[in-house]
């Protein structure tokens, strides 16, 4: 059945950014409608069940979730905070960074982090303190993270976003191992230390050091909570509605059309799917100048991620409240294979336990997700095939890489594979199929300093009433997506009063 409905705001996709936009705008009295192409809401928040366990896809842990911290405050503001959804990760060491010859466990809190690192690198005391002082100072420049507008200095902000992490770190320390530790979190945004903006990296680091939390019931539960809030505010959330066209008239968006033949009219459209996909849907490509089209075309994507979802026999080698990062080298130039495209051999991996809280007491099987960088190119022949109808060759290619990942991990956990009861794998094709990601990339646009700060896309577009939101517009992560939504929705309903309310709530 096809029909036409009218809303103040139509929101494309139901990832964290879309849900946050919808929750905020519906709270402010706008009639909103969320259209999700998949049968479930949440985008990367979604979970799936295998072997009797719950596995997360893209929500293993988050930051800034401690009382009064930015993410916590934002969710409370939206009336979407529920304590039972989150579990604090191990304050003594929530991230374990393992290199061939040493291991470092990152604890919660700046002072503890500085102290532990200084114990590790006594001669780097000054460098370590200065680095974290700079992290703390730079995050204060981002109004939608710190909820302040008063001290905003655009020149300082642009300078912070156009300086790379490596530029800052290399000036502070010659210690290659210290550099390696400070670069480890680059796996979370997928951008090399020479290219990631220090400001964006700092937000990620700050959020994790201050308030590292796991998803107690999986990312799904947060998505469900957000949907409940939107519906309570009178909003509509629909699944299996793939937007295929954005209808415009005189360069103004009028409506979106879905593959089911429905038309949704709106005063505003907020798109949470990839900007390239969003602009491809606009029915009048003449709106975009050749300069803009070229700019869009030159944006590259982050790497793909290969996932192994496994059940690990009891007694487990992993703590439920920690994440584990493994690097083949502690050489800053070699430890991150984030640009690796052709060499099908893993050089880094990270392991996150799913089900952060045990279902019952006593030792039991632990579900873990193992991730490693990979390229969509390796799976090119099978692009466009349905996920459950791929031939034997595809599965053989997947198995081969899974075995290489197990071999890589063997140096850290001898015989890990023999302790795994069952496993299933995913490739970037899963991201293409389930999430409509561009080129199967894990974290969307490669946010290098070339396209952050003054050069970042969004939230405004060349169509005044079409906004973009999500990981592609600011930085990846559940928090990045939520913060980006604050900017996009804030553009519609006015950001200043919201920042003021958030600031008051945080105190």
């Amino acid at each position, binding site marked *: 059945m096809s029909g036409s409905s009218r809303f103040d705001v139509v929101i494309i996709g139901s990832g964290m950014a879309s849900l946050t936009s919808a929750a905020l705008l519906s709270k402010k009295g706008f009639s909103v409608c969320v259209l999700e192409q998949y049968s479930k809401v949440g985008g990367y928040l979604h979970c799936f069940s295998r072997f009797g366990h719950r596995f997360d896809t893209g929500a293993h842990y988050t930051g800034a979730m401690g009382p009064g911290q930015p993410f916590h405050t934002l969710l409370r503001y939206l009336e979407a905070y529920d304590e039972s959804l989150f579990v604090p990760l191990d304050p003594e060491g929530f991230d374990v960074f393992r290199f061939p010859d040493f291991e470092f466990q990152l604890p919660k809190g700046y002072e503890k982090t500085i102290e532990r690192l200084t114990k590790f690198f006594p001669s780097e005391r000054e460098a370590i303190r200065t680095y974290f002082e700079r992290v703390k100072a730079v995050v204060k420049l981002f109004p939608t993270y710190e909820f302040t507008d008063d001290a905003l200095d*655009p*020149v300082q902000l*642009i*300078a912070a*976003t*156009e300086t790379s992490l490596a530029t800052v770190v290399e000036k502070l320390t010659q210690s290659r191992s210290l550099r390696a530790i400070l670069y480890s979190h680059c796996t979370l945004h997928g951008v090399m230390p020479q290219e990631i903006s220090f400001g964006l990296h700092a937000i990620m680091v700050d959020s994790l050091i201050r308030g590292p939390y796991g998803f107690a019931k999986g990312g799904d539960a947060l998505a469900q909570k957000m949907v409940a809030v939107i519906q309570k505010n009178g909003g509509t959330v629909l699944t299996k509605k793939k937007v295929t066209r954005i209808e415009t008239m005189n360069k103004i968006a009028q409506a979106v059309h879905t593959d089911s033949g429905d038309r949704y009219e709106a005063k505003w459209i907020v798109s949470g799917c990839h900007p390239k996909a969003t602009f491809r849907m606009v029915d009048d490509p003449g709106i975009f*100048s*050749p*300069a*803009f089209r*070229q*700019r869009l075309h*030159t944006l590259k994507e982050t790497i793909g991620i290969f996932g192994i979802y496994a059940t690990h026999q009891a007694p487990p080698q992993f703590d439920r409240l920690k994440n584990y990062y493994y690097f083949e080298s502690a050489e800053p130039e070699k430890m991150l294979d984030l640009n690796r495209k052709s060499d099908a051999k893993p050089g880094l991996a990270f392991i996150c336990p799913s089900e952060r809280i045990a279902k019952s007491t006593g030792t039991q099987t632990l579900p873990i997700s193992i991730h490693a960088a990979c390229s969509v190119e390796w799976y090119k022949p099978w692009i466009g095939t349905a996920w459950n109808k791929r031939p034997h060759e595809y599965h053989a290619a997947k198995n081969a890489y899974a075995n290489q990942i197990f071999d890589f991990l063997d140096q850290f956990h001898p015989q890990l594979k023999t302790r795994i009861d069952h496993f299933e794998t995913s490739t970037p094709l899963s991201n293409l199929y389930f999430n409509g990601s561009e080129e199967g990339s894990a974290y969307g646009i490669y946010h290098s300093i070339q*396209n952050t*700060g*003054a*050069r970042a896309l969004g939230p*405004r*577009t*060349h169509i005044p009433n079409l906004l973009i939101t999500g990981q592609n517009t600011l930085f990846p992560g559940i928090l990045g997506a939520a913060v980006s939504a604050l900017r996009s929705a804030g553009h519609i309903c006015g950001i200043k009063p919201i920042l003021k309310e958030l600031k008051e709530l945080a105190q």
Partner: protein
Amino acid sequence: MTNPKIITKVNSVMHQGFEIPLEKLTPEATLFTDLGLDSLDAVDMLVHLEENIGIKVDGEKLMSVRTLQDVYTLVDELSSQPGVEAKLEH
């Protein structure tokens, strides 16, 4: 005096990138009023100039650009960056 090669190159980039007729591209033309660009186009312009001329501009510099002459001057100042000379020839 701005290097004439820079004027020609910037004009050609503006013409191709924004489909602005060449005769409108005069030094005193203001980007927003005379050439019809808006603040989003200004960012596209910056990226487009960087791509096509091989310069790297500090984002904050964009804030003081008003006329096309300001763009010529900005590019001129940066034209000693490596690789720019070759791109000006094409």
